């Protein structure tokens, strides 16, 4: 499953990573090498094997439906690159 330049651009777009045009070819080569190495997994017989999603038994945890934290707007906004009127501020979304 070779990754071409178009696929690299598509994956970068999905990952919200801006790539300079010069970065595409070397990244495609790197990804192909890594994915080629990973491809050895296809030879493993996994017929009838259930995928492992967690190594520990997860039990549903219950708690009282009460407020334990809150009233921390200033803390939440303290690291915001831009904030206004108690909100996170972002560049204009609607033209």
């Amino acid at each position, binding site marked *: 499953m070779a990754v071409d330049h178009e696929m*690299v651009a598509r994956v970068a777009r999905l990952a919200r*990573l801006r790539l300079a045009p010069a970065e595409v070819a070397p990244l495609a080569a790197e990804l192909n090498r890594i994915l080629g190495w990973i491809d050895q997994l296809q030879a493993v017989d996994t017929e009838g094997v259930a995928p492992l999603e967690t190594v520990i038994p997860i039990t549903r945890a219950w708690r009282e439906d009460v407020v334990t934290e809150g009233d921390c707007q200033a803390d939440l906004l303290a690291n915001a690159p831009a904030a206004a009127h108690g909100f996170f501020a972002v560049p204009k979304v609607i033209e």
Partner: protein
Amino acid sequence: MSDLTALSVAEMREGLAARAFSAAELVSAHVAAAEAARPLNLFITETFDRAMDAARAADAALAAGTAGPLSGIPIGIKDLFATKGVRTTAASRILGDFTPPYESTVTAKLQAAGAVSLGKLNLDEFAMGSSNETSAFGPVVSPVRAQGSEAPLVPGGSSGGSAAAVAARVVAAATGTDTGGSIRQPAAFCGVAGIKPTYGRCSRWGIIAFASSLDQAGVFARSVRDCALLLEAMAGFDPRDSTSIDAPVPRWAQQLSGDLRGRRVGIPREYRVEGMDPGLEALWEQGAAWLRDAGAEIVEVSLPHTAQALPTYYILAPAEASSNLARYDGVRYGLRVVPEGGGLADMYEATRAAGFGAEVRRRIMIGTYVLSAGYYDAYYRKAQKVRALIARDFAEAFAACDVLLTPTAPTGAFPLGARNADPIAMYLNDVFTVPSSLAGLPAMSVPAGADSAGLPLGLQLIGRPLDEGLVLDAAYALEARAPKLPAPASWWR
């Protein structure tokens, strides 16, 4: 008072209790050592003033009889743990100015036990690396050097700053995190002990996420007993982490005996790999002989899917990382880059391109690819199935033995820059540590000897789920028989 930095945690506790020295003297000696070790680039953020305040508070608690089990003990914190009011970067530009308004559970527990942090230790960016060279704050230089050489070596990674700070006698112990070997491999490279407990033993709450099904906190120290003492303070159930295990935390340090009579130690034959240092193979056999001397029976076992563990890991870990790192978008915290006249989508893309380093970008790309439509079953689902086989291998091996003995890493430390050109060559460092990570098992590296250049080599012990006790005890038996490695010569002073 400079010899205070040579003490073990256990000796520091005795000295503080007997008033042989104060916590302020102890911490101040370590601050001086940390200042002298700045050429090693161990810390991303130093908190020496806070440390001295905490040391004076520890002295007051010691005097009042209210001291905790680690009161006054100087430690370092890997800069992946959120620390309230202290910058926390994950060694990434994207979090370069992030100051958490909350404290991670593990560091809060250490604080409650009285431990004194000297600051936030360097690591690979978002813990993605095996040499500490992907840090946006520059690489850590190992305190360890080859005999007769001044070439700078890597400390291993990703918890490179933690391992190096403990080895350099800058702190008595340090926290780390381990996703595929990030505690055990740097412990081996720097000649210190390091334990990754069972997945779920330590809370992940407040640890910046890399691969959530694998990430686990652990600790470095210069002895097995010290690791046990620290881990007792760090472990325990946390309702704020849905994968935290609700099990009592044993008194591991008290239970150390080094007596392995009636125990079976398994040697997995698939861990004999090409390219292994010949001295390492001999050391591994020597390690088995030491454990036999401690009373254990040595048995050969098989872990048939060992070779598939690394490719499995390099699907699952990047997949989880690409999801976890989606949160860094320039909106709520961290770096924001807005191109001239750009909108929201431009901001996301420019922020992430500028904020993440090459290895992190590479893993996000791989993770996004293997999770994308049309490839999910072939890669991600397949890897989860192979992960099930790897976990089953361990379960079957533990029917025939109680603990496994393997090398920690295929070689000793390598020079800075030596393996940067080839990502796969770098990934191969973790060939012995990744399988137990995928199975969520407790595992520990203990210094066992040195290679022909005098570089430390570690042996790894892997236990059953929640059996940190036997992992520590077998490591303790090895430590008692292995030659003591000399402390690194303080060439940086």
